[in-house]
């Protein structure tokens, strides 16, 4: 039994990787699309006067579906910690999460009946849309960025990147020993610089305009221009070469950090706002029945 299961799953997994978006030939896209279509058709057929609204029978139906969907979608946070295979595999779950999550745009918008205002109801809707939009961003970067990330790394691991930097730092440190105080200070600043420093914006943009390594290199070159003596033997030459290598190592790391930041940043919106949404949803539902 166990072997049969194993072989089947091995076959199903196969060599061709099927991502969660294409899972089972877009099964969940079809299901979610069907849900949207039915919702829209029913919305158009039901002639709610004077305006469609969340308090009509159809409004309550859509609201119930939407609220249950939101709660179920949130469960991915728990579910993802257990990676399993089969019909209810994590991949199937994630696929459903994505497509049913997108279908909420239709279900919840129709539930509103296009009534918006400065109230807890619209707050819940806006929070939900923020969660969905951040999720859409997440899907987009998950689809596009890993390729860039691995191209950038060129088969090196994060540990190797850090080791390269440490090795360069050691070499720089040694090579800079004969330098005078001013030049040594420039190199020291490069060494003291935290390669993982900078704020969120620098992580996302990859721009580090005050990079001490680059400044050290520029300054040392400027200094060297005046007092070049024996080429090659000059410790400045070696330091310059090492700084250049460090800068290219830093560029690699920073690009890596940028891609990783772009891949991660949406979760810092998606997850906390989901919780805020559930709170707002609770307030929305309770308030509606409190002031029925």
């Amino acid at each position: 039994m166990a072997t049969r299961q194993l072989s089947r799953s091995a076959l199903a997994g196969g060599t061709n990787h099927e991502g969660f978006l294409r899972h089972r030939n877009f099964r969940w896209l079809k299901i979610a699309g069907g849900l949207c279509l039915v919702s829209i058709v029913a919305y158009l057929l039901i002639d709610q006067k004077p305006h469609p609204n969340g308090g009509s029978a159809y409004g309550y139906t859509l609201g119930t579906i939407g609220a249950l969907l939101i709660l179920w979608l949130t469960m991915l946070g728990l579910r993802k910690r257990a990676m399993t295979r089969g019909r209810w595999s994590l991949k199937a779950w994630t696929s459903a999460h994505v497509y049913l999550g997108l279908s909420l745009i239709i279900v919840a918008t129709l539930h509103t009946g296009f009534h918006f205002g400065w109230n807890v109801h619209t707050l819940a809707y806006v929070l939900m849309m923020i969660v969905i939009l951040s999720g859409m961003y997440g899907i987009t970067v998950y689809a596009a960025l890993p390729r860039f990330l691995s191209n950038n790394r060129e088969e090196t691991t994060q540990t190797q990147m850090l080791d390269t930097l440490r090795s360069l730092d050691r070499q720089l440190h040694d090579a800079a020993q004969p330098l005078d105080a001013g030049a040594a200070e420039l190199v020291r600043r490069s060494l003291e610089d935290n390669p993982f420093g900078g704020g969120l914006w620098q992580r996302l943009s990859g721009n580090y305009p005050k990079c001490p390594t680059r400044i050290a290199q520029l300054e040392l070159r400027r200094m060297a221009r005046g007092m070049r003596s024996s080429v090659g033997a000059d410790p400045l030459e070696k330091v310059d070469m090492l700084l250049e290598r460090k800068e290219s190592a830093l560029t690699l790391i920073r690009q890596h950090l940028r891609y990783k930041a772009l891949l991660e940043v949406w979760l810092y919106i998606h997850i906390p706002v989901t919780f805020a949404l559930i709170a707002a949803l609770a307030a929305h539902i309770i308030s509606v029945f409190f002031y029925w």
Partner: protein
Amino acid sequence: MSFIVRQISRTAEGREIIRPREFDQEVLTVGRDTASDIHLADLAVTLNHATIRQLGPDRIRVATEKDLPFTVNGRTTSAMEIPVAGGAEIRFGSHRLMVSRDPEGGAGLIRIDVERVEALSDASEAKDEAKVFSLAGKMPSKRAVAWGTVIVVLLVFLAWPILTAFQSQGVKDRGHGFHADQTWTAGPLSLAHKTLETNCQACHQKPFVAVRDDSCLACHAGVHDHGDPRRLAVAKAAPAGFDKIEIAFKGAFNIPEGRCVDCHLEHEGATRMPPARQKFCADCHGSLSTRLTDTEISDAADFGTAHPQFRPAVAVNFDGPSPIIRRVSLDQQPKEDNGLKFPHAMHLSTTNGVAQMVRTMSGEQNWGQSLQCKDCHTPDANGAGFRPVTMEQNCQMCHDLAFDKVDGTIRTLRHGDPRQVVAELRSYYGSHGVARPPILGGMGRRIPGQGAAATAAADYYLAVGHSGGADAAIAKVFSPGGACYDCHMINRATNPYTLNFEVHPVRLPQRYFKLGWFDHRAHETESCESCHSAKKSNSATDVMLPGIATCRSCHGGESAHVQVPSSCAMCHDYHRGDGAPFATRTGNGSTSGGEPVANRGGMSATGRADPSPVTRVTGGRRAAG
């Protein structure tokens, strides 16, 4: 020996490697230069950074070149004498020099332990890779933000409004300003309820209890019932399909049927309150006759497709003192017995004598080339209907009742009072007796002889004989060709030889439809002729009301694709009053959102009575002669 310098380094496992070197000299040099006595491979240290001079067996002085800073026991300085006995920690860049008296050496031997205490570079420090390569640390923690926002949202949008709601219970007016439960609003209130915008508790009285009619009745005290509740119960159709499910749900959630708010929806925007949907009427009225078998009301469900022909209330028999009013379908071409003779066609003609008279009087009356409808029919105060046509206002300028002129003043017969007419005529003829010739007596001079007197006497008696014409004049005025007879039905009393004339009373209808409502002002873009064929009407008995087909050329049911989709509430009122129905009053009759008609009379709750009666009966008096 003066100094023993011990260079300490550590292996990866943390084991110490000590390389001691002894110096028998007074001064030690410290610097990055490899020739220094204490060589510090430290870029924060200059090539020749400092000197350590022994001042005595227990005392050293540390001084840097060019005032470079270093720290002694945490204090920054550039030169300092240090007692060795107590030990001291000197920091140059990333290196630490621990100065102490060497316990094994003799007096005056000073030990200096040199160790690098900071990593060579930032990158060389130990790093938690999983953390530094991720955004953690650059963003606030997801968990903290999640719980923080959850608490804020629940406090601001749930706890605070609930607290406010309980505090507001029973409060009549909370006044303007912000109240936390307003964040729960489902949309702006209608214009009529705008003042309740800050008083949620006015309608939402109990938590988790749907709005009850009591909330509405607190202000709308005088609302008319639609009908006898027992008959209403019979008239109601049994719910079916989705309605059944809806009612089951409502029952489960303690929401009674037939609440005010079922029809009068709120929070639908700051506009006039939308009228009840056609469905609410059609549910019962669509097949009313099947349940309420004795009803006189015809079934109606949709104006465009399921509405009976109009049945105006017309006077079908006016032989007695008051007419018999009966609702007759326009399909049966009812005849109105109103007691008048009035051919509309003759009056509206552009070519006949009437038109000629109009032209001669056009300057004085502000008329055109012929009579127009508006020349006689003046809109009433609210424009929905017309003021009653009266002899004085609308007829007398042509049909004048003048009979005498005294010193330039014209005397007219009094309209509406036949006895007075008779009295006036008799008086006229009485006061105009023939003067007696002087020749027939008295003291005046006369022509000699009897011949003249005889002639005068003959003439006088002839004149007197003819002057008794009052009876004839009275008979004439009430007979064909006479002033009264032209317009009125005259009943001659049973004895034709007495002058007992009787003018038949007149009944001019003010409203043909008691249960429906028609607003002329809403139709002022139409010409009168497009609905009323007055120009072809040769008899006052014609009921010139347009049939339903004419209305349907513009109006259809609530969701019909016609010029003016019209729900029942456009013409009919659920809470029956005599004024305009709710939808017309509030200008919400058309679902296509046309211009509001006008607000005629405020809330139906006031039960405003229409000042104009349905019929107006005038005349009907006897002219006793």
